[in-house]
């Protein structure tokens, strides 16, 4: 399928260098926006495109920008959230590694639209090798007059700084990211006030995902109207999906919104079917935080309609029979995968990454991990399953930041759809252990 927007020039050799990128049509949007358009026109174009945030929540970017406090007494900041730590998601890394200039281009245009003079890329600590790539791209852009005091002689000035974090998952939450960027402990802030009014250093701030910002350049090039025609309904444009798990061809794919999930899993242009000719068991479609869905519900919705790769279609059936598109970390499980073990693994992650600030998340994630560890290792009781449901319900919606919800949803959905597996672990622990890991029971 053609129609690639972000990864259109992916295969051009040396696209990481400024000259090649510029020669293949890069930085056109900067020239167009800065020379021919006013900041308000650029923002309007983004609103018209219907672009929705690619970080996971799917909030309309144009609307988010419109919330920014435009009082002239304080400087404004744009922060690029490159702290991509969601298990199963690796699209931003791919984008920054191969097309760093696409991000820089998006940052310049977005900064122009928002009236921002300094812009930060907060990059995950584990992506240290990307810092050099990004800084080289920034240096090249400086040399060619696309960054600095007077960009292309238009009088608009912008500086971009790259700030590596220390590898905490919680610093991907926008207010924890701002705390960390200020040099403090990465605890999420209590909202309100929202970053649009009081963000970095107490000034109005917009925090956007890497993929969102990288899309801004192409939107300005093709026009918001044209971009909104791609995709389906309110999910416009294309989206990067990082597919992994038991599939034939794991990797990052750019899809047009509205592609049927079935085509994505079995299509030769994408995942290429389940590895080793196994059967599909379950899919986590948007990074580890979103609810897991069994094979029949991911291919078709509960009402029998084909499920599509859009924000709306994924959420069809709410959390009873639906899930979320999230950040696009598409994790596929084949028939041999043990849902209990996977859920336990995810809870272990959330326990380790909880910041420990608010009580439901601090205590609840650890408790869930303990109970799931017990069930997985053959010490569980039937009452433990209901206990897990109750803990997940108590965490959901009571925490400061979405990490609590993110920890509760996988557990609640795994029990909702795969309760029989949990029961089997409780009733026949020795058989399960032997079947899954080829181990003889030792107790």
């Amino acid at each position: 399928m053609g129609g690639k927007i972000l990864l259109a020039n992916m295969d051009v050799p040396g696209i990481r260098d400024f000259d090649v990128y510029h020669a293949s049509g890069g930085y056109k949007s900067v020239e167009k926006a800065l020379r021919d358009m006013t900041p308000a026109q650029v923002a309007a174009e983004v609103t018209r495109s219907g672009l929705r945030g690619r970080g996971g929540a799917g909030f309309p970017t144009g609307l988010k920008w419109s919330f920014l406090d435009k009082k002239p007494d304080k400087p404004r900041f744009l922060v690029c959230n490159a702290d991509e730590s969601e298990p199963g998601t690796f699209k931003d890394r791919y984008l920054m590694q191969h097309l760093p200039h696409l991000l820089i281009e998006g940052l310049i245009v977005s900064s122009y639209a928002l009236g921002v003079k300094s812009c930060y890329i907060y990059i995950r600590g584990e992506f240290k090798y990307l810092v050099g790539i990004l800084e080289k791209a920034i240096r090249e852009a400086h040399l060619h007059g696309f960054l600095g005091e007077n960009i292309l002689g238009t009088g608009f000035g912008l500086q971009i700084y790259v700030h590596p974090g220390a590898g905490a998952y919680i610093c991907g939450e926008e207010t924890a990211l701002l705390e960390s960027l200020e040099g403090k402990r990465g605890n999420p802030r209590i909202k309100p006030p929202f970053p649009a009014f009081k963000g970095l250093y107490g000034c109005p701030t917009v925090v956007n995902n890497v993929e969102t910002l990288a899309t801004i350049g192409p939107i300005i090039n093709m026009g918001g109207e044209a971009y909104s025609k791609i995709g389906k309904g309110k999910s416009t444009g294309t989206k990067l999906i990082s597919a992994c798990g038991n599939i034939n061809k794991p990797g990052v794919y750019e899809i047009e919104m509205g592609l049927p999930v079935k085509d994505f899993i079995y299509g030769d242009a994408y995942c290429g079917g389940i590895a080793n000719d196994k059967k599909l068991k379950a899919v986590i479609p948007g990074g580890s935080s979103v609810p897991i869905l069994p094979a029949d519900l991911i291919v078709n919705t509960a009402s029998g309609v084909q499920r599509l790769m859009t924000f709306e279609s994924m959420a069809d059936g709410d959390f009873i029979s639906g899930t979320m598109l999230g950040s696009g970390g598409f994790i596929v499980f084949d028939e041999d995968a043990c849902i209990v073990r996977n859920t336990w693994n995810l809870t272990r992650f959330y326990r380790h990454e909880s910041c420990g600030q608010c009580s439901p998340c601090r205590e609840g994630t650890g408790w869930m991990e303990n109970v799931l560890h017990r069930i997985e290792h053959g010490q569980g009781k039937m009452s433990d399953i209901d206990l897990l449901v109750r803990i997940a319900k108590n965490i959901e919606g009571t925490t400061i930041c979405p990490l609590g919800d993110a920890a509760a949803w996988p557990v609640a959905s795994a029990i909702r759809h795969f309760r029989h597996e949990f029961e089997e672990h409780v009733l026949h622990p020795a058989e399960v252990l032997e079947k899954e890991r080829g181990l003889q029971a030792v107790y």
Partner: protein
Amino acid sequence: MIKVTIDNVTVETEEGTTILQAARKIGGKIIPPAMCYYSKLKGSGGKCRTCLVKVSQSSTKDPRPMPKLVASCSTPVQDGMVVQNLTSPEVIEARKGIVEFLLINHPLDCPVCDQAGECDLQDLSFGFGMAETATEEERREFPVIDIGDYIKLHMNRCILCYRCVYVADQLTDKRLHGVLYRGDVTEISTFISKGIENDFSGNMIDVCPVGALTDKTFRFKSRVWFLKPMNVHRDCPKCSGKAVAWMFGNEIYRITARKDKYGEVEDFICNECRFDKKNPADWVIEGPRHIIRQSVISANHYEKEEKPSVIKPIEGTMEKQK
């Protein structure tokens, strides 16, 4: 002035106040419990989540309900806001869940804890806790560290309200302790086991809602409800000198700051007043201190009980209680 309705009681308040402060204007049982919020400490609140309330109408302009329960201590009121605290079964359920979370790793060593009788967590679990425990795991334990001659840190009891950190930040100039690590192994600690030494460090004890920080000069001396609180004052060059002496006969067992009816310190006092002046001759005794609390501490103080405010349930939201 704007109008807010909390549990069917309407109150007028200034713009910028939080729901909790508006509830305090009404008073009585309507006030959501607060374990981490402290009106005297800037930035506190929002962490313990016990003060969660339901906003069934955001404002007159925007009558939609808020999608999630909100922390009343950090959510500002808007004109025409309708808030449900005790009248919402959802809030009661959520609060029960939070109390359970706070207690699963709490050692429950109240029989040997100096805070017993004046402990916010005791009051909270009496109000919203469950009778039985659902955990079978071992409770979390921390290595014991010594933070000086006056203050005993008992990290196992801590609920991480961050109040003591704000005290150290806002009352004293060199903060020596803070929060280390993250998740469920987060702890309050000093950097490489340093002692906390400054003139106002003792206020950490007063702001601590549980028995995590206690007075070493008073440890295991007496139960608080056996003592007689007296208002005392002295000329102190460092602080206001207004304090409460907890006496047994003519002996002063301990000195604390004066607390208002929300359990918050009125005037922070210095360490010299708190720890070193245990001789009644050092103080001018004004008279008995009125302690208005529901818990056991006021058992021997013959306070006239405040008339409990009547909670009117909204029709259909709550089953009729017997």
